[in-house]
């Protein structure tokens, strides 16, 4: 009850006209930044920081939280429209979102994306409101061994992403893991596979790779024929913008699974929204009775990752607000902003500045509603992008993708990487090698290696550390199950088909 009272107080702060205005500006700016390929929410918040100088700290943080939040929604826009995810967490959205757009159902994809984001986000904020402190303490049980087990689980759920041929999925995974090995070895300080290139010391960033494999490769594929796809022939009238209510609400299972997975992973510092959306997608596919429809424009394939990445971004606020620990790059920037305004985040933030903490949480409810409304209102406008003549749209996508790639680390080497992976991605497409496992392996690989080696440093080299700690053990078992269960299900399905016929 006390929580509710504090939340209501927070709401009364968040709902003052100036704060609503700033939240609106924040979410709009965030959505734009999120929609631009490459520029993630961390850069977005950092760049917008100066706008807030001189504001009341609460108002400033409401604006910045709006940017953070808006970027999560915005990321799906370019993922669906041009197959170039605006934000790393939107990679999975493009897998089914872009095919939907190509089939002339971009409006449906947007509605589902924003609806799922809203539900995932709201679920995340409610959990944040009522359970933040205890959840934050729970998340502390995750040391390096637990993270390693989690990464292994992430890699084994890959079976859900492998596409038609498991062998090609494996090739893609191992290629991603190889790329993940590039860079400085944290334990010995040796630069691995860097061949003297300074920029490679920190490894191959996965975003330029994504920009190439998805955005650039899609344009190359689009060049095969100058004829327009179905997207152009289908009507863009208002009636075709939105899916049928029944179809929309039949996604509830995907929402629940996505939101829970997203929030649970988001709460863990360092795991983040990207991994959450991957896992949600893979889980959704593993649970689905029609896994073959994924990747070809299946609505649950949009719903689950979108619900997950928004739930995760709310989840990432848990360690920040409850313990003063940044769980992601963006929350690290937010933490810096807090301090610039004279606030001291830490375990005492809720006690010392309840007005501030609760206003920030309350503003997230407001921002979430604003975003859902806004995206739906603007859907007809977004869809118009697809009406742009192909001879303008295709070069434009290249420009925006490459410029966005540059902005990730302000470095031209990333642009080269994007171009190279554009060609690789196109060849993968032609050879029907799935690109998603590569990306996931590249995201998880460095984390997996780091956590494994740190664990073994903690345990003096004994591998038993992964199996003697309860959470790590459970996760390892789950990882094994994630590998085996889909195979069993498939075997059963094929047997029952045989029996039936």
């Amino acid at each position, binding site marked *: 009850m006390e929580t509710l009272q504090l939340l209501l107080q927070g709401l009364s702060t968040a709902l003052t006209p100036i704060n609503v205005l700033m939240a609106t500006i924040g979410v709009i*700016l965030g959505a*734009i930044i999120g929609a631009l390929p490459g520029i993630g929410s*961390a*850069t977005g918040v*950092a760049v917008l*920081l*100066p*706008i807030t*100088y*001189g504001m009341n700290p609460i108002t400033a943080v409401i604006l910045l939280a709006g940017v953070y939040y808006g970027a999560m929604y915005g990321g799906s826009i370019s993922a669906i429209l041009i197959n170039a995810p605006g934000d790393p967490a939107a990679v999975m959205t493009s897998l089914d979102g872009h095919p939907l757009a190509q089939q002339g159902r971009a409006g449906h994809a947007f509605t589902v994306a924003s609806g799922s984001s809203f539900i995932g986000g709201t679920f995340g904020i409610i959990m944040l409101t009522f359970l933040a402190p205890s959840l934050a303490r729970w998340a*502390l*049980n*995750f*040391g*390096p061994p637990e993270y390693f087990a989690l990464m292994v689980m992430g890699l084994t759920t890959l079976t859900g992403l492998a596409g038609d041929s498991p062998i090609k999925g494996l090739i893609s995974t191992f290629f991603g893991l190889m790329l993940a090995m590039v860079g*400085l070895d*944290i*334990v010995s*300080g040796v*630069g691995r596979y860097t061949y003297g290139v*300074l*920029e490679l*010391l*920190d490894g191959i960033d996965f975003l330029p790779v994504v920009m190439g494999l998805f955005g650039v490769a899609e344009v190359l594929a689009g060049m095969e024929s100058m004829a327009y796809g179905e997207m152009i022939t289908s009507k863009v009238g208002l009636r075709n913008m939105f899916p049928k209510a029944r179809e929309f609400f039949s996604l509830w299972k995907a929402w629940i699974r996505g939101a829970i997975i997203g929030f649970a992973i988001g709460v863990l*510092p*360092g795991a983040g929204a990207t991994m959450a959306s991957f896992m949600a997608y893979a889980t959704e596919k593993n649970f689905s009775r029609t896994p073959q429809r994924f990747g070809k424009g299946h609505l649950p394939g949009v719903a689950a990752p979108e619900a997950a990445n928004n739930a995760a971004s709310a989840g990432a606020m848990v*360690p920040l607000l409850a*313990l*003063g*620990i*940044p*769980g992601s*790059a963006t*929350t*690290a*920037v937010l933490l*810096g902003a807090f*301090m*610039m305004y*004279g606030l*001291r*985040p*830490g*375990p*005492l*933030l809720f006690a010392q500045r309840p007005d501030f903490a609760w206003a920030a949480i309350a503003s997230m409810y407001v921002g979430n509603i604003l975003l859902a409304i806004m995206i739906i209102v603007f859907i007809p*406008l977004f869809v*118009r*992008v697809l*009406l*742009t*003549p192909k001879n303008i*749209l295709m070069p434009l996508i290249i420009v925006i993708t490459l410029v966005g790639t540059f902005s990730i*680390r*302000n*470095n031209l080497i990333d642009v080269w990487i994007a171009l190279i992976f554009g060609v690789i991605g196109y060849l993968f497409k032609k050879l029907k090698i799935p690109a998603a496992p590569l990306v996931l392996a590249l995201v998880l690989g460095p984390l997996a290696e780091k956590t494994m080696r*740190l664990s073994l*440093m*903690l345990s*003096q080299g004994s591998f038993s550390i992964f199996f003697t700690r309860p959470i790590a053990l459970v996760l390892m078992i789950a990882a094994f199950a994630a590998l085996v269960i889909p195979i069993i299900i498939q075997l059963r399905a094929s047997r029952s088909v045989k029996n039936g016929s």
Partner: protein
Amino acid sequence: MKRSRLLVLVISLVLVLSMLLVASGCGTQAEEPKEEEPQASEPAKEEEKETAAWPQKPIEMTVPYSPGGGSDRLGRFIVKVIEQNNLLPEPIQVVNKPGGSGSVGSTYVAQNPGDAYKILTFITGQMTAPMTGMGTYSWRDFTPIARLALDEFLLLVHKDSPYQSLEEVLEAAKQKPGEFTVGGTALGAEDNMVVGMLENAAGVDFNYIPFDSGGEVNTNLMGKQIDSGIFNPNEAIGAIESGDFRPLVVFREERLKDLPDVPTAKELGYDVTFQMFRGVVGPKDMPEEAVKTMQEVLKKVSEDADWQENYIKRNMLTSAYLPGEEFGAYMAKIEPGLIDVLKAIGVYKGK
């Protein structure tokens, strides 16, 4: 500055929308944005040019680490103070170029000798990076502009830890050589150097765990995954205040004003002092005028009330302004000591 950026945003939005509409064949609305276009020149006029010869265009401040890190905070706070007090007629643009323990950003600036519009945040770690084989430009390839602050190091344990003092920690480390874990940020990083110095002074062998960031060390100490952690005060101050972490020792000449109960290593009989500096440098042969002006500006920044209160005090730093040449002399003075420590922890790859 604030307003002009918002204006630019509005204009660019209008531009994008108009492009989309034009492109999709919605010709009638294309007229609208043109009416607003004259605003584009406004921000430029708004800022009256002063008579000073430098700067005549925006200055680019490279922060060679990711957004959210300590150097990013330094850079952005400097810009905040400069903008709030109109200390410079032209804006400063913060650019993050992370990679290779700061060496990617350092290299970028070093490759532009004589450039008056590129400056770089510079910390101890960037000085030692080339000594550990990362990047080729030494601190001598830069023009020191000013040192602004010194950051401290604290050894912390969790409140539930059995260790009440540095002595007990060292005793435990002696019992089981190589097993007592100390969380830090990276191999060869400043905190690793402090641990190495302590190991040498006390004749013990710690198990140094290189997490990626202060935030991760914080999480892992909070979750009791490690026996102790070594921190910059600002990374842990929230948890110290709440009583979750117990500070055991500070590696400084005198005790910290804000933590008067925490002894220095020196008092306890171990001659280990280490402070990391945070400053600003430019490329080699940076024009004299630019260096002088920037020095003056940074001096004013370091005396600003907001800076002192919300940057220095809140981050528990020591305000330590040193102008150009003295900053250079300071680096020359600490260099041999740094090399010795790097050799001791086995990461030195110098010439």
